[in-house]
């Protein structure tokens, strides 16, 4: 068990102790000593980094912002499928918080946050240190529920990766994909609802197919075993698969496969009630829940996600803790990087309103999810949202149509590239 050491050291020393490359802080030490309100953000992804950035940037130095992330760099899960498909390099999708620190005086701590003491208003770290907060933002993403798939575990994920958290898992998956020979198959087990990135598994299937097709493989198949009877943008994916990858992809819904009996990663098999599927590459994407710290903090519901106040993104259990992104129950909003970034801005505004005399405007949210099916064949789905007493509710939506022109599909793909550059700037600059 970690000892909870509440220390009196200033944050500048804190960074040096951790050897976390204590970057020069933009704020002079005397300001820090003066008791500015403190915001701590756990999770440096599209929710957390955006929140930290907007709070720091828009508060004119009035708020002390600390960002805690377990890693030194961040590989975006969004666009990781494009890396699998050779449309992006690993470096293209991996970023760090150095600019954020340099530009906005944010204190970045590289550590794993293990728990929250809500009474004392502290976050505890794996090394035993604690960090005090006036307001806390948790954006911890998802945890994988390994045992939701019989035969699967964290160990098995080393050879049958989920790659539903980006980074090392994505690289394992990429290595295995690239090592396939013609005639070897891929078996994907898709996740049950609710999960991070609804169209994600099917964009990934498209990227698998793209790689195999580029190599001229004719005998490899991609089997998708899906616990869901239907999936996001299904008509668009099925149109695209028939057009670009005829005969290569077989999708099985629960009516046909009847449920997963066992995954045997060593043997390379996924046994279902209907049949056993064999593949040299197994991509198992289990059920998910909110990142562990949300549970540790006592903020999750029975289903494992954090209910929030639709008007502010405050957790329903604790008014001084805001929760963003995949970990939340966000009504009609999907679990996506775009959603997390959108929610972060509402939370940032509300936090500044509470801690300073900043204006608070009525919340509004948006999301767009782009998916690439084949080179220059991109589709999208998205909506605008507003908060209601009951939930965050969609007010208008759009989705790409089957039969669209090649030109529009190319524009849609290129738009996604513009968005990616934009959200990276919005998170890390």
């Amino acid at each position: 068990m970690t000892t909870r050491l509440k220390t009196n050291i200033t944050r500048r020393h804190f960074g040096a102790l951790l050897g976390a490359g204590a970057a020069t802080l933009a704020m002079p030490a005397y300001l820090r000593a003066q008791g500015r309100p403190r915001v701590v953000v756990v999770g440096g992804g599209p929710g957390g980094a955006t929140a930290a950035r907007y709070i720091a940037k828009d508060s004119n130095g009035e708020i002390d912002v600390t960002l805690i992330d377990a890693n030194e760099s961040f590989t975006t899960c969004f666009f990781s499928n494009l890396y699998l498909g050779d449309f992006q390099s690993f470096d293209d999708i991996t970023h760090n918080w150095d600019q954020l620190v340099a530009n906005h005086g944010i204190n970045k701590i590289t550590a794993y946050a293990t728990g929250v003491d809500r009474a004392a208003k502290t976050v505890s770290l794996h090394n035993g240190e604690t960090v005090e907060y006036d307001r806390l933002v948790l954006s911890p993403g998802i945890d994988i529920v390994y045992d939701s798939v019989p035969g699967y575990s964290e160990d098995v994920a080393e050879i049958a990766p989920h790659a539903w958290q980006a980074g090392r898992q994505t690289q394992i998956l990429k290595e295995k994909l690239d090592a396939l020979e013609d005639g070897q198959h891929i078996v994907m087990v898709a996740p049950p609802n609710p999960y991070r990135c609804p169209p994600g598994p099917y964009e990934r299937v498209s990227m698998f197919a793209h790689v195999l097709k580029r190599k001229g493989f004719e005998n490899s198949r991609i089997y998708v075993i899906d616990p869901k009877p239907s999936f996001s943008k299904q008509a668009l994916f099925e149109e695209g698969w028939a057009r670009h990858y005829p005969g290569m992809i077989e999708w099985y819904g629960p009516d046909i496969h009847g449920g997963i009996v066992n995954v045997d990663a060593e043997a390379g098999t996924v046994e279902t009630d209907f049949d056993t599927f064999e593949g040299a590459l197994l991509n198992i994407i289990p059920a998910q829940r909110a990142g562990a710290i949300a549970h540790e903090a006592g903020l999750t519901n029975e289903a494992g996600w954090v209910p929030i106040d639709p008007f502010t993104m405050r957790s329903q259990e604790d008014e001084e803790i805001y929760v963003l992104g995949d970990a939340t129950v966000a009504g009609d909003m999907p679990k996506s990087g775009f959603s997390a970034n959108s929610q972060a801005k509402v939370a940032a505004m509300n936090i500044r309103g509470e801690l300073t005399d900043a204006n608070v405007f009525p919340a509004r949210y948006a999301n767009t999810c782009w998916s690439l099916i084949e080179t220059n064949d991109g589709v999208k789905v998205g909506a605008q949202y507003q908060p209601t007493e009951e939930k965050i509710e969609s007010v208008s939506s759009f989705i790409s149509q089957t039969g669209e022109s090649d030109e529009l599909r190319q524009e849609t793909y290129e738009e996604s590239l513009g968005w990616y550059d934009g959200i990276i700037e919005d998170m890390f600059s």
Partner: protein
Amino acid sequence: MQATRLVAALTMMAALVLASTMVPAKADRDVDQIDAKVEAIMAIDGDPAYGEFLGSECATCHRRSAPSESIPPISGMDEHHFVRALVEYREGVRSNEVMRTTAARLSDEEIAALAAHFAAREPR
């Protein structure tokens, strides 16, 4: 007899509703009407603070630094151009579903606020 006519009417109504939601209607507006709407919005004193908040949503795609080929820069955009673009998206004159959906929920005051904010914002 009554039942089948009712079913037919309901089916037709459903088809019409479905058609109108599935394919966005191409608004066939007079240029004059668009001009008038743009002028009306230009006459509103947009609140730049409100525009800053609304504009944070835009920042993700329309980033401030090096513009992308597919997504135009809007920082420093002339107010008249800005208002015209959003009105044309809102009226369905311009295509692009993301912008149409975004503009559709913006009131005149909100467009004015956004225009004021972005006009004053220097591109990096």
